[in-house]
């Protein structure tokens, strides 16, 4: 597996990126109470209890750098970040809830509306859920991987499965040689072995983690687990609790 690059990631120079922009009054960090709510309970009591434990704001520069580097692991040069953020015309937000920090992309054209909704204590989801921080490590989400594939930007660290492989992966199974149809030309070079799992049509099925010693998955036996299952699209049916 490749080492984590020590040099700063290359970034597209884009005057539109709102590095220093902040919402007036730092709305995301304020108590989260929407004083404009009319009498009559717009936010159910059990939801309102959560309001002090989460806030939303633009991602910090440090967070963006880490996310940028991770996202670009799946594309060529700065292509993945460009596709998602620059050409996608998105702002990058962090959503802090307890000890969990997630990163979301929200269209810039939605800025004015989102600015007023950010303080709503009943906010449950917004934009594209790109992934989650675990300490200083950013893990791309299933939806983030799917969006990269949809935009044609997932050109590195991917594998393709056969039709039978697709069936077993969508049941949560690990990947062995008979399931594998193709590996990206440079092999899996992600520093943690993470790869996007595609079906034979190139559609995103989920994410996996390299287990085999050979990152090109050539010198492998039929029985060994090549790629461990991380997450697959079957969760939309199997595990709706994760969306709570």
């Amino acid at each position, binding site marked *: 597996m490749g080492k984590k690059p020590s040099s700063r990631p290359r970034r597209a120079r884009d005057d539109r990126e709102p590095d220093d922009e902040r919402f007036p009054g730092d709305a995301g960090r304020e108590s989260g109470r929407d004083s404009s709510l009319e009498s009559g309970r717009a936010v159910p009591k059990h939801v309102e209890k959560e309001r002090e434990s989460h806030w939303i704001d633009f991602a910090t520069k440090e967070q963006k750098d880490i996310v940028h580097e991770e996202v670009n692991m799946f594309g060529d040069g700065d292509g993945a970040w460009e596709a998602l953020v620059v050409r996608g015309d998105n702002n990058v937000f962090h959503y802090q809830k307890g000890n969990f920090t997630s990163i979301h992309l929200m269209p810039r054209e939605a800025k004015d*509306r989102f600015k007023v909704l950010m303080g709503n204590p009943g906010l449950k989801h917004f934009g594209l*859920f790109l992934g989650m921080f675990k300490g200083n490590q950013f893990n791309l989400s299933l939806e983030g991987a799917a969006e990269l594939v949809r935009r044609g930007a997932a050109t590195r660290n991917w594998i393709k499965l056969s039709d039978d492989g697709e069936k077993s992966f969508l049941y949560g199974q690990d990947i062995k040689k008979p399931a594998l149809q193709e590996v990206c030309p440079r092999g899996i070079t992600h520093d943690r072995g993470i790869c996007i799992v595609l079906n034979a049509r190139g559609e995103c099925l989920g994410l996996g983690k390299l287990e085999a010693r050979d990152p090109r998955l050539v010198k492998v036996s039929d029985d060994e687990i090549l790629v461990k299952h991380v997450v697959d699209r079957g969760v939309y049916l199997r595990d709706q609790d994760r969306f709570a």
Partner: protein
Amino acid sequence: MKDEGYAPYVVERYLTLFSEQRTLDIMKAFQRAPVPSISVNTCNTTVKALRERLEAKRFHLEQVPWCSTGFWLYDARDYERKHDPGSLAEFSIAPGATHEYLLGLYSLQGASSMIPPLLLDPKPGEQMLDMAAAPGSKFVQMGQMMQNKGVLVGAERSLERIPALKANVQRCGVTNSVIVCNDARYLGEQFQGFDKVLLDAPCTGEGLMGSDPSRKNSRSVGDIETMMNIQIQLLEKAVKLVKPGGRVVYSTCSLAPEENEHVVNEVLKKNKKFKVAEPPKSIARYFEPGIVKAFQVKFREDLANAVRVFPYSHPARPEGFFAAILEKPGARGGGA
């Protein structure tokens, strides 16, 4: 008719509201569930491509005439035998568990429930509000019509229904949405000035008797009145949240005029500048107009522009439904 399991008041109401023949037609259609239907997510695939993939899996698709991305779904073997159980359980492959479904290429959506977003006609770049968004089939349909441009806000009161809504949104790749767990009756200043508002209101679900026969006798007249009061509160809020020149679509899956024409009539008495607009002929021609008089009560004349779906409207037995476009006069501001 008693043997069909209907509560007596249901039959009496139908006979008063509609002719005897129409009452019989409704009840006959409700004997079986609607044929299942899907809505193609054209942000992720094309109608042609999905059709080929599903036909290869031995599904037969029939076009829903009022929705270019809507299809009724049959098991191909059943279709060849002209066997139409109308039940998802009869399929050899569950339509809600195919790989294509998991990939977000389509959603399971009632053919009637495809109508409100079509009447609302959300456009890319607009600001839309769905006041009762869960479980999300109409919400996702609107996101797809907007091509993920603009902003689509969904309010849902029930925390238990939020996971299903989020799952549908993320499965289908709707990336311009904001979901809030809020009671839409009390939405505040944060929710002013939307270009268009969808209110698919909670109701007694009378139009779903085909798929849920228990509704033939599990609801009372009191339930109709309870829901009617909630619907009036919701619609009163909806008309406040839309900007001048904007549009509200009010819909229910009920056949009761108390939950439909009466609600619109009551709310527009206090909001006189609104009018009930004509629906596109491409949709209206399949259905019946709204009722302007029921139970000796007269409603405003433009309620004839509303759309009523009866289960006998098509051989596939669509869910009973009501939808009305309410337009707010005034020039729309520049930009969404």
